[in-house]
């Protein structure tokens, strides 16, 4: 695996849209070619080389390419967008849309990510060691197909609207989340190991939400079913299972109504 290291040298005055920072775009390119890739600051089309010092070269394919992003990237959007393979390591905290529409490979952020990280994600593994902003693993505006596959793991806390319109894949938040967990969720799994204040599973059709801590205010449309032992994130534990959201439409499968499942740790 070849490694390309890019280091912030000139901070953008506004924000930098750098959707070319991905193994798919760096693969098969030399440092000078990577430096010539486009980026946008407002309406101005510039190059990555104007902002980043670039060392090393991409591997033959995306899967053979590893990118290390160094320096203050708090004004850089779209790192790892649509990446399908390979690896990206961000040492500090990038701005919005990190790992948006990610399809495969591995994306690790040592700091925190801002809002809209991992939106519309289809596959791959996305690890955030700090906190995440709002709309983590959610659908893009107006899209009814949110996250469809892959794994997002946040070691810290997450903001509101995580897993909005989620269809598949897994989101694990080790800390707390803000309001609106899995709103309009149709499939997949959200695990909040801390607390989730309220609006958990509102308008949920299918899928699973696990909350280990407390929910201050439950949605009215959840009815208790039974206690169940489930294996979550490699560990077995006992949960109280609720079905919901009963205010929402629900499809039938084999004559049985399919509900969204909300598990509260006992």
């Amino acid at each position, binding site marked *: 695996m070849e490694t390309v290291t890019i280091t912030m040298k000139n901070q953008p*005055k*506004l*924000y930098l*849209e750098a959707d070319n920072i991905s193994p798919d775009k760096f693969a098969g390119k030399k440092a000078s070619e990577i430096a010539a890739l486009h980026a*946008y*600051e*407002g*309406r*101005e089309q510039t190059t990555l080389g104007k902002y980043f010092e670039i060392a090393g070269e991409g591997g033959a394919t995306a899967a053979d390419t590893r990118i290390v992003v160094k320096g203050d990237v708090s004004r850089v959007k779209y790192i790892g967008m649509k990446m399908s393979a390979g690896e990206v390591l961000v040492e500090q905290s990038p701005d*919005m849309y990190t790992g948006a529409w990610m399809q495969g490979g591995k994306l690790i952020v040592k700091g925190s990510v801002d*809002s*809209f990280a991992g939106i519309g994600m289809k596959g791959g593994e996305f690890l955030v060691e700090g906190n995440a902003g*709002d*709309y983590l693993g959610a659908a*893009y*505006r*107006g899209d*009814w197909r949110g996250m469809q596959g892959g794994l997002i793991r946040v070691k810290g806390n997450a903001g509101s609207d995580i897993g909005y*319109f989620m269809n598949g894949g897994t989101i694990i938040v080790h800390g707390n989340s803000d*309001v*609106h967990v899995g*709103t*309009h969720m149709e499939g997949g799994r959200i695990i909040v190991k801390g607390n989730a204040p*309220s*609006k958990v599973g*509102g*308008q949920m059709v299918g899928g699973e939400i696990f909350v280990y801590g407390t929910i201050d*205010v*439950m*949605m*009215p*449309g959840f*009815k208790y079913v039974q206690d169940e032992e489930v294996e979550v994130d490699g560990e077995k534990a006992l949960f109280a299972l609720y079905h919901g*959201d*009963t*205010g*929402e439409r629900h499809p039938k499968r084999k004559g049985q109504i399919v509900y969204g499942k909300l598990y509260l740790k006992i």
Partner: protein
Amino acid sequence: MSKSVTDVICPFCGTLCDDLEVIVSDDGKKIEDIYNACAIGAEKFMHAQAPERVKRPRMQQPDGSYKEVSYDEAVEYTARMLFNAKKPLMYGWSSTSCEAQSVGHEIAEKVGAIVDNTATVCHGTTLIAVQDVGIPSCTLGEIKNRADRIIFWGCNPCHAHPRHQSRYSVFPRGFFTNKGHMNRKVIVVDPRVTDTAKLADYHYQVEQGRDYELLSAFRVALRNEPLPETVAGIPREKIIEGAEVMKSGRFGIIFFGMGVTQSLSKNHNIDNAIMLTKDLNEFTKFSIMAMRGHYNVTGSGQVLGWQFGYPFSVDLSRGFARYNPGETSSNDLLRRGEVDAVFVLGSDPGAHFPISSVKKIAELPSVCVDPHITPTSEISKLHVPVAFVGVEVGGNCYRMDNVPIEARKVVDPPEGVLTDVEFLTRVNARLDQLMGGK
């Protein structure tokens, strides 16, 4: 002899009343009286007559004072500011005509600006919800003639849209509602006992920030599923009773305002309210409508939607339209320092935005186009006074139910004062020159 101008529309709130009568002096220069308008609407016409009105553009000086400049200089400053910026914000658009909006969008497309209107701090969340789940709506005329279940959720038309209830929603006698308010049941959902709540048949005093739960609870009740004892501070029986009242009508309507669009859950509240409306259509006919504030904020959404596909927060910086409130919305842009110039027309962010955003406007190159002196004009580098749309110049406007109504001119603007369209057209032409010479 004074003369009377009839069928004048009121350019103040989204009700866009079209039955005003204005008495003007013989020379057509002075408004003498206004009939049919509510107090706030009449005030708007009277403002145009204020003796202290600014009639020439003013440029802020380093010491904070203002110096009068010509319209030519104002056009030059505005065009250069937009030309030099990498990502200018062009905000407002809700208190002007669709014609002016259209010229503004042409400029925005040229300079790669972000176009945003007052929905961003108002009904933008509604527009997000509409995009997510659609909307079953109708016109105010249908409500007047048919509706017998009226729900005001998080809005207070008694004060914000004073003639709404008498013209359309509560009191008028319509074709199928010939007993006026006797035909109608009014439900108000509001944490406060507002004047609208006082005239309601049912007042649901919902806990602050729990509208989403209450909306869900109504939906659960409609499906005959079990409910907790209380939801959002409302006892279960009351919720079931409310659901029955809604179901039993022949035609129902939910009007909602900023009490739900800008409180906790924002777009999700509207999303759930729209889904409740859809659910109610299993039992009877039901519609839902946003109580839009500015008289032509709906028009701004219409023109933006027609030209770029999105109703507010449209980012044209990369030559194609993008839209993501939370990123491309004015307050996020200002707070985060994403824009490098601000152009405001037909709104007053200086009064409505949080102080962190207002400070940013004050720091950046900025132009405020507004007939009045406002908090925004006072912090902008350049203030360009213009004629009042709907008073001194006509133009197209959209009522809150998306019905277009042509505003009428009743008096002449003060000598030499440009209209929005004239000023924008000159800026647009100057930009063409600047860009041609690039």
